[in-house]
């Protein structure tokens, strides 16, 4: 018997969906196992169809994206109610995603930049009619409703999603590994003597050799090893888009302490190398950082 599955998209780029579709011919094996009851990107069922399903009647629910709008929050709660096993699918869902970087500012500033102050805007206003309204602060979905399974990644690879689905379809556990991108990386590593950090446009990255050893900020050492070291394998530094392994609670804090230990430079020079620590160390997971959570709490209090 195929299992009933619902796939919901909150605010996101839809890359997780594209990644699932990128199984391509592999889809021919997976699709017969699934009875799709909601997947707006692909199938014509509407929100009211999802809302009308009995509680707990869907075997597997995948939630992509994070809650930027009040409608996102509603859909998340409906998915929780309808699905037996709920999967936080992708870094937006698990960690808040790149849009979590917006938590750095008061929400009003975000609205103003886009709708009031953009160079090309001729009729500034904040749109309101027949629209859901915004969530002022991005929280990772697991701090809003409980999830049974977490699968980070920006996006998770097609294989990651297939592995998770296969486990769920065969009633096996799906746990995240505690290994890092470095554990999967084929580049040759030597002893580190980092005296200066280079920016990626400077010089040339030498192929085949550890990118961090060469003085470029490659975050593989603090990032969960799920992707197969996709970026270092093509001569490009890891930006940490899958977030940290489960044992690390705060990605950026871990990165900063590790850099302090490995960089052979004065703390002032290290600090000056990274004038934007939030952007550099919390690419897709600022919303799940201690700093951002504190800010979210304070915003709640102000109200």
């Amino acid at each position, binding site marked *: 018997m195929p299992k009933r599955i619902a796939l919901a998209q909150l605010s996101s780029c839809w890359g997780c969906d594209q990644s699932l579709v990128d199984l391509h011919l592999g889809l021919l094996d997976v699709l017969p196992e699934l009875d799709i009851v909601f997947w707006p990107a692909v199938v014509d069922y509407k929100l009211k169809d999802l809302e009308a399903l009995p509680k707990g009647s869907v075997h597997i629910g995948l939630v992509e994206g994070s809650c*930027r709008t009040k409608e996102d929050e509603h859909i998340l709660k409906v998915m929780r109610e309808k699905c037996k096993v709920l999967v936080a699918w992708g870094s937006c869902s698990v960690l808040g995603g*790149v849009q979590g970087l917006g938590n750095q500012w008061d929400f009003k500033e975000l609205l103003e930049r886009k709708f009031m102050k953009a160079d090309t805007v001729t009729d500034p206003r904040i749109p309101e009619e027949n629209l859901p309204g915004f969530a002022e602060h991005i929280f990772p979905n697991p701090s809003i409703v409980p999830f049974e399974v977490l699968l980070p990644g920006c996006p998770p690879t097609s294989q990651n999603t297939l592995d998770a689905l296969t486990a769920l379809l065969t009633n096996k556990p799906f746990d995240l590994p505690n290994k890092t991108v470095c554990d999967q990386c084929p580049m040759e590593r030597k002893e580190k003597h980092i005296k200066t950090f280079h920016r990626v446009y400077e010089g040339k990255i030498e192929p085949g050799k550890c990118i961090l050893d060469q003085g470029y900020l490659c975050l593989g050492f603090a990032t969960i090893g799920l992707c197969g070291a996709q*970026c270092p394998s093509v001569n490009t530094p890891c930006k940490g888009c899958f977030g940290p392994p489960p044992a690390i609670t705060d990605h950026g804090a871990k990165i900063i302490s590790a850099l302090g230990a490995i960089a052979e430079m004065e703390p002032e020079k290290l600090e000056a190398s990274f004038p934007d620590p939030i952007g550099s160390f919390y690419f897709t997971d600022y919303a799940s950082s201690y700093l951002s959570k504190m800010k979210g709490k304070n915003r709640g209090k102000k109200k």
Partner: protein
Amino acid sequence: MTEDKIIRIQPVTRLEGHGELTIKMTKAGKVKDVQFNVSSTRFFEKFLEGRFAEETPRIAARICGICPEPHHLAATKAVEAAWDITPPPAAIKLRRLLINAKQYSSHALHFFALAAPDFLAGPLGDPAKRNVVAIIKALPDVGKMALQVMQFGQELCAAIGGKAIHPVTSVPGGMLNPFSEEKRDEYLKRVQDAKEWTLKTVDLAKKVVQDYWDPITKLAVTPTYYLGMHNKGNLEIYDGNLRVMDPTGKIVADFKPKDYRKYYGEYVANHSYATHVYYKPDGYPKGIWRANSLARCNVADKMATPLAQGALQEMRDALGRPIHATFAYHWARIIELVQAIEEIEGLLKDPDIVSTDVKLSDVKPKKGDGVGCVEAPRGTLIHHYWTDERGIITKANMVVATNNNIAGLEKSLLMTAKQVLEDKAHESLKLPEPMI
């Protein structure tokens, strides 16, 4: 309230992004207004501020998981323009290969997964069967070919960009990873099959056009302005000038993307988080334009490759120029699919494509601003960044592809709603027997 009925479609399905539809009707059953409510936005314009400019190609790619390559490249080009740097010629060829690979897979995805269900199951078909999953079941040969076409494009994107979804290799000054001879040889072999599938897709599209000739030429024929890129008149997606065509077919502007602010206006509708972009000199709503495949085919004199040019000529012979038929967007998409595969083949055969001279090593940031413009599958894409002397973003303005289409889409929907809900057009239009 004068309206007695409001129809809400929530969400609009088989759409990339978050959209809902509101149709307001009067008591007498007349359509009063149609709103396309884009119901989410994430504020990239703000949270790019303060970031290293060279990281924007990776951050801004996250605007769209279906078309991250155009964002990756528009961001790179914006920073290069701000810092006044020109990457090596071989890097530009690699980027052209990357954007064409994306054009190819995205157009295939759109045609087979987003659009084809309407035609194969029929507009009045069972919603449960009106999707690509049902197509794969009912028409396994078409389904398999669709998956292979998408796979070729996505895998080629990954071969150049490192990852297909959120590519990583383009940076200000060039590309971080050259294309190996081994990979080039592999894709040169595979491109022959892809070309064959493409031509079969053209045949399928032509059959759809024939079958649906009545609705294509009668429903949602919506005159607007059109915006698109060209290079000496040829349809172009990586680098060129922008043209604006008015509803009569006259080219009213032809300009460098860096001057976009003279021609672009963004109207903020009260019912959409996505702005309505329009031709500023003629004001809103008169200057509403559309971008994307049909707009590009309208503004270009011709296609850049021979087979695609033949296909364009066929469409122009049938529907003229400019074409206002909204359904012809699908036809134009297939014409561009042909150009994409021809461009891919040409670039793979170019010996420079495996050059290792693909990155400058002496790039220096400077204070300034730069515009990066490419054509995304859904339309003209502009990233405009300001950086300080350390190369940190101080301001960003982005006009993304889809926003060029929202107002035109709404106009087209209003017309269709009147035709269907008031005049019952769907009862008199000739529709074929559904294939599934």
